[in-house]
C-alpha cells in the first residue's frame, strides 16, 4: 500500500547517517521516530508505517516502541503542548493548583486539547528542574521555570501571538557565604 507520508532525499541521507552510529538498524528507531514526529507533528498510523518501511522493521515493532515512551505522540494534539510538572518538588510548591488554574483558563481538563486546537495541557512527572519549579515543558523542548498564575497568563498570551519563549538559563544559586568574612 502506498503511503501518503514520505521522507525527502535529504532526510533519508540524515537517516543513513544516524544508522552509521549503531551496529543495528533497529537502534536507529528512536532517533528516526524523533525525526518523523518533528516533521509530521505526531506518529499516526501512516507515519509509523513509513518509519517501519524505512528501517526494515514491522509496524508492530515500531508502534510498540512509540507507545512505550511518553514523549512520542501517538495521538493528535494541539499546536502547543504544555506538560506541567506536578511531581514531588513542584507539587509542594503548588503545581497542582497551577494545573487547575490552567484547566479553568482554557476550559479543558488535564490531557485534553482546546477546541481551537491551540493548547493541549497535561500533567507530567519530574522534569529535572526541581530547583526552579514549578516548571513546564513546551512542545517537548522549551522549559518555562518558576511558574505562577501571572507567568502562566503571560505565557498563554505570548503563545496566542505565536511567540515561543527563549531558552532561559537558570544561573547557579549565589554562594553567599563566599563573600562573608571568615569567622
Amino acid at each position, binding site marked *: 500500500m502506498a503511503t501518503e507520508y514520505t521522507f525527502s532525499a535529504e532526510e533519508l541521507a540524515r537517516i543513513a547517517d544516524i544508522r552509521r552510529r549503531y551496529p543495528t538498524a533497529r537502534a536507529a528507531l528512536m532517533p528516526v521516530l524523533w525525526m518523523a514526529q518533528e516533521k509530521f507533528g505526531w506518529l499516526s498510523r501512516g507515519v509509523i508505517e513509513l518509519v517501519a518501511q524505512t528501517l526494515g522493521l514491522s509496524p508492530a515493532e515500531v508502534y510498540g*516502541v512509540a507507545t512505550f515512551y511518553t514523549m512520542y505522540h501517538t495521538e493528535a494534539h494541539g499546536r502547543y503542548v504544555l506538560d506541567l510538572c506536578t511531581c514531588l518538588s513542584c507539587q509542594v510548591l503548588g503545581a497542582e493548583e497551577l494545573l487547575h488554574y490552567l484547566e479553568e483558563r482554557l476550559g479543558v481538563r488535564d490531557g485534553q486539547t482546546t477546541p481551537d486546537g491551540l493548547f493541549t495541557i497535561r500533567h507530567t512527572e519530574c522534569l529535572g528542574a526541581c530547583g526552579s519549579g514549578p516548571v513546564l515543558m513546551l512542545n517537548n523542548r522549551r522549559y518555562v521555570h518558576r511558574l505562577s498564575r501571572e507567568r502562566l497568563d503571560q505565557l498563554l498570551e505570548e503563545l496566542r501571538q505565536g511567540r515561543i519563549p527563549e531558552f532561559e538559563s537558570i544561573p547557579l*544559586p549565589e*554562594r553567599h557565604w563566599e563573600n562573608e568574612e571568615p569567622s
Partner: protein
Amino acid sequence: MTNWKAYRPLLLPPIRGLDRIEVYEQHGGYEALRRVLAEWTPARVIEEVKASGLRGRGGAGFSTGLKWSFMPPPDGRPRYLCVNGDESEPGTFKDRQILEFNPHLLIEGALIAAYAIQATAIYLYIRGEYADWIDRVEVALLQARERGYIGERVLGTDWSIAFYVHRGAGAYICGEESALMESIEGKRAYPRQKPPFPAQRGLWGRPTTINNVETLANVPLIIRHGAEWYNQIGAPKHPGPILYGISGHVNRPGVYELPSGMPIETLIYEVAGGIRGGKRLKAVIPGGSSTPPLRADQIAGVTMDAESLRAAGSMMGTAGMVVLDEDTDMVRVLVRIAEFYHHESCGQCTPCREGTGWLVKILRRIERGEGKPADLELLLEICNQMEGRTVCALADAAAWPVRHTIQRFREEFEARCRGSLFSVPEPIPSTSQ
C-alpha cells in the same frame, strides 16, 4: 565539616563561557586526557580511580574504579561506555547543570573512562525532555571532534573512539542501566535480568560499563590532581565534591557544589537560606524520591554520605534533597510519590506492576478520608511483597518511601483514617524504623 565555606567549586566553577572549548582548555581542560593517553596504561587509570574512592553519583554509590575493573580484557571486538544522563528521579536536577555549564568536563571524563575500559564507542543517553541541553552538548561534541579528542587516532595515538548522543523519549525506567541499554538498542526499555551483568553482556551483548554524568565529571579532576588529593575532600568513605540539588520549601533552592558529608542542617539553614516564610522544618527527603524521608527530629548531626545516612535510616541516592515545611501534607506527598512509581513501572514484574497500583489505590483512599482500619498494615504488607522480588530496583524504590513515610508520620496517616466511617487502625509494629 568545619571549613566548607572555604571550598571552591571544581565541577561547576564560576567561569564565564566554560561551555566553550577554548575557555575550557585555557583552564587546563583536556590536559588530563592528554596525559593519560601519552603516559598511562588503562590499568593505571583504573587503579588511580579506585584509589580515589570515587563512588557512583547515579544513586547506588558503587565504587567507580571497581566497576571499571569488571570489564573483561579486550578481544578486538566492540565494547561500550554508556553515560547515564537520564536524570529522572524526582528531586534530582544536577546532571543538567553539568550539561549546561561544563559539558567538556563530562566529555573529557567520559573519554578517559572509555580509554580505561578500552571502549570502542561511547553512547551518552540524555532524557528526551532535555532537548535544549542536548543541542548544547552536540555543539560541545563537535568542538571536541574538531580538536581531535574524539574520532580515529585520538591526538595522534593509536586509540580511536566514537562518541554519540542518544535522546530518550520520556520514561524514567531508562535510567536503570539495563533498560538504558535496551532503549539505545531501539526497544521498549524493559530492564534485563541480572546476571549477566553489563560488563559481561551489555549493549548488543558486548562488554559495557554504565556511569552517571556527575560520576564521570569527577574523573578529570582525579587525574589532574591525583587520587590522594581527591580522597581528602569530604567524607573519607564517600569522598569528593557533590552536587547537592536542594528543592522544596527553602529560600534559595538550586544546585550547590560542596564536599561530600555536609550536615543536612547546614545545607538547609546556611547553604539554602533556611525554610521559606520562616516556617519550621517537617521532613527532609535526602536523595531523591526513593530515599526514605527523615523527620525534623531525626536529622541532628546527620551528614550527606552513605554511612551517616544509612545509620539515620535513609540513603544518599542522588543527593537531590527535598525540604518540606511544617504545613506539608505528608499523605498528599506520599500519594504523589506513589503515583510516580506506578506511572513509571515498566510492567514486567507482577509485584511491581500490581503492587505500585495497589499502593496508589489505598493511599488515595486514605487521602480522601475513606481509609479502612487495616489499610496501613496492608500497605506495609504490599511493600514486603514488592521489595527484593523483581527484575530491577524500581519496585524497591517505590516501596521504601511508602514504608518509611508511614512509619515516621504514622499519626498523620492515622488521623486521616480516623476521619472515615471506620474505626481507628491498629498501631503498626515499628520494626525497621
